[in-house]
């Protein structure tokens, strides 16, 4: 067995070197956000696999199969709850992880490529969440589906082609739901898993978590691989237990079944897209739904290229790097303000 399983050759050991600089592994430096993102994606992945055995991706049965999972299947409500809350925690952890990297300048070379991978993972996470929201096939999900996919049609020249490529049909219906199911459980999962693995591998290749350059003559502190495992286990256990309690106290939401014939009174986008919904009330669809999000993404992606060198590496809120921090803070404030505006509308 030991010959079959040689731990020093496993990816687990590859990601956990014998010694890790203590300054990069401090809780108050990373808050374990990357790890929490990975853990929550694993929880979501595993519970998602369980859900595929019961979920039926057809307009007639999708919602009913969720009710069955929720109310009849043993531990179904817990599975679905963990899937839902795991996904919310994942979105939150990925976003906060991104903010942490900006506010500590962790994207500085040689990590700028991994930064782009990270931004791509954020996009995958958001689309993953959106497609999952649609699979609920309740009244809110259906209208979000309709609005979300119709935004694609706003893209000049290629809008219709992109719509048909992603929705796989000329209009919303059984085909579209099946397509989104395919994207959710397969397309995005492959991209997400590959992206996370590559992101982690790249992290090691780039020399591990960013940290301040040592002053001359300073002794460098390290923590052992065992200590890292230990910290990861403690964090994972506490986050997992918290997820379970959130799940039991706040069951995953499920509205009434989507009715394609009925009108709709007041539908709210999933919380991560509330700002788009509010922007749609202010700007034309092409600007609100396509250009603005792409502009924000482009701006975030460009940060490591705007802020390449100089002092302040791996230091929280370093004054020398105030520009990228102000850019991100401004983006965050605008998005939060728009979301709050939509909630209080």
């Amino acid at each position, binding site marked *: 067995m030991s010959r079959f399983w040689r731990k020093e050759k496993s990816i687990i050991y590859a990601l956990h070197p014998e*010694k890790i600089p*203590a300054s990069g592994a401090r*809780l*108050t430096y990373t808050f374990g956000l990357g790890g929490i993102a990975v853990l929550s994606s694993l929880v979501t992945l595993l519970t998602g696999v369980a859900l595929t055995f019961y979920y039926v991706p057809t307009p007639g049965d999708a919602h*009913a199969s969720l*009710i*069955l999972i*929720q*109310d*009849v299947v*043993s*531990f179904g*409500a*817990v599975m679905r709850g963990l899937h839902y809350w795991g996904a919310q925690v994942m979105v939150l952890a990925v976003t906060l992880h991104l903010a942490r990297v900006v506010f500590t300048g962790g994207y500085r070379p040689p990590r700028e490529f991994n930064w782009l991978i990270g931004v791509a993972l954020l996009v995958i996470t958001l689309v993953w969440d959106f497609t999952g929201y649609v699979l609920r096939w309740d009244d809110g999900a259906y209208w979000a589906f309709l609005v979300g996919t119709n935004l694609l049609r706003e893209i000049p020249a290629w809008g219709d082609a992109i719509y048909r490529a992603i929705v796989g049909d000329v209009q919303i219906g059984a085909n579209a739901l099946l397509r989104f199911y395919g994207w959710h459980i397969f397309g995005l999962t492959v991209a997400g898993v590959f992206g996370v693995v590559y992101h982690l591998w790249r992290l090691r290749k780039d020399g591990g978590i960013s940290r301040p350059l040592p002053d001359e003559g300073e*002794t*460098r*502190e*390290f*923590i*052992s691989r*065992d*200590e890292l495992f*230990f910290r990861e*286990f*403690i964090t994972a*256990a*506490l986050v*997992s*237990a*918290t997820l*379970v*309690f959130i799940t*039991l106290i706040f069951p995953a939401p*499920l509205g*009434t*079944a989507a009715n394609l014939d009925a009108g709709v009174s007041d539908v709210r986008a999933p919380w991560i897209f509330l700002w788009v919904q509010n922007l749609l009330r202010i700007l034309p669809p092409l600007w609100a739904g396509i250009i603005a999000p792409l502009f924000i993404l482009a701006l975030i992606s460009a940060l490591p290229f705007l802020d390449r060198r100089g002092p302040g590496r791996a230091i929280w809120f370093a004054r020398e790097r105030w520009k990228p921090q102000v850019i991100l803070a401004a983006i965050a404030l605008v998005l939060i303000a728009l979301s709050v505006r939509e909630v209080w509308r």
Partner: protein
Amino acid sequence: MKHKGVEGNKGNEGTEGKTEFPQFLYFPSTWLFIAGFALLFAALAIAWNESHQPWQGWIARYNTQSDVTPVPIEIRTLVPTQTGKPELCVTCHIGIEDISASHPAETFGCVVCHGGQPLALDKDRAHTTMRGGRNPSDLSVAAQSCGQANCHGGYTDAERNHVDRVLKSVQATYAGGVAHVRFSFGAQKSPTALFGIRAVSDPTQVLPSKELRSLDMFATNPVSGTLDAKMVSCLDGGCHLWTTPAKPQAYAYRSSGCAACHYVYADDGLYRGKDATIARDEPGHGVAHQLTTAIPFSQCNHCHNRGNYDLKSMTFDLRDDLSPVARPLSAQMPLEGRRLLEYYQPIADFTKCEYELNCVDCHTAQEAMGNGRIYGSKKDAQYIQCQTCHGTPTTKPQTATIRSANELAMRQARINGHAEFLKVGDQVIVTERGELLWSIKQIAPNKFVQTEKVSGKIHNVPLVQGSKCTQDGKTQTSDYCHECHAVVR
């Protein structure tokens, strides 16, 4: 386990002191203990949650009832033959009564009438999409539940489309009451019906009204103090089938829509069935989850005999000679005289058959539920007179022969649970409007008998012909009969 080292100076434990937590929390095994405990606690919480679902609680509560055989706590499935789709409603509503013999749950299930989510076991989720809340026969949804095609709607024979008919009936529109009150106060120039509680129309009708406008047009902009604004109270509750009673109270409990008549409430409004989800001590529930065509007089009296509108104030005044407190139930009620005193209006006179029989024994379905025409008053809609069954000094009641087992009268006898009373070839009484009264038949040239719809008790129906009555048959109405035959209270 080594937790922290310093390069070039292995084993130096001096850095251990740099903690962000109290000292005891920094001890690794403390964290291990906390994390392990959290995981264990989470696992136990999942297990506890799985065995403490609300539906399990309802079955447990069902089992605590003294008069039931305890059942295992498990999910119960009903697969109605009509839909073939499983429903889990009976998991929580275990012990609920079949709604009626002609609507067996095994055939129809629950969802075909109630709507809702058949596979949900969570109360809110299961009930969210229910039709008409607790009452699928509410007139706002009756067409989708009771009035579905091949149920009580969609037939070429209008008589079978009860829901269509009832929507236009005076019971639903309250057209007569509205017209007369408005006329009395000068709000309209004649007592012709112009408004209903809801707007209805019948373009095929010649007389008396093709359509009634909705009175609730005033509800959107009530002018304070005007008559029409006051009449909005008719829309808010209390009057007729579209509405639920404004102030449910003893003797006056009822449902709305079809259930207003067919779903029997006890005078105290308490449920007496086996469904543990319905509180036994909460007034406002039917006696049991049951529809009936054998409607007892007490059900009609929940609306028709508890008081009057005060025309000045437009408020409903309950009879002050009765105390609205718990009294014996209607089932135990018909002791000679008590019913007359306790239920019936002090100002009116009643003949013996009027308080010994039930209302439905004389008043037909077409009177109560309408015949599809829009009537402007109760007087126009109601036509059964004493002479319908008793004849006049010169004539016998009109009769007709039952010709086939599929005839409406035969079907009504079956639905009412008295199939044995009637057979093909029997002579039954026929009303002025041509309906066959299935419950009154001729058994000899001068002998008629009636079966009570509720109890099945048989009564002789005396004829006026051959009696000492000296009324002129041509002008004879029930008012004349009451002059001699009313019981003095």
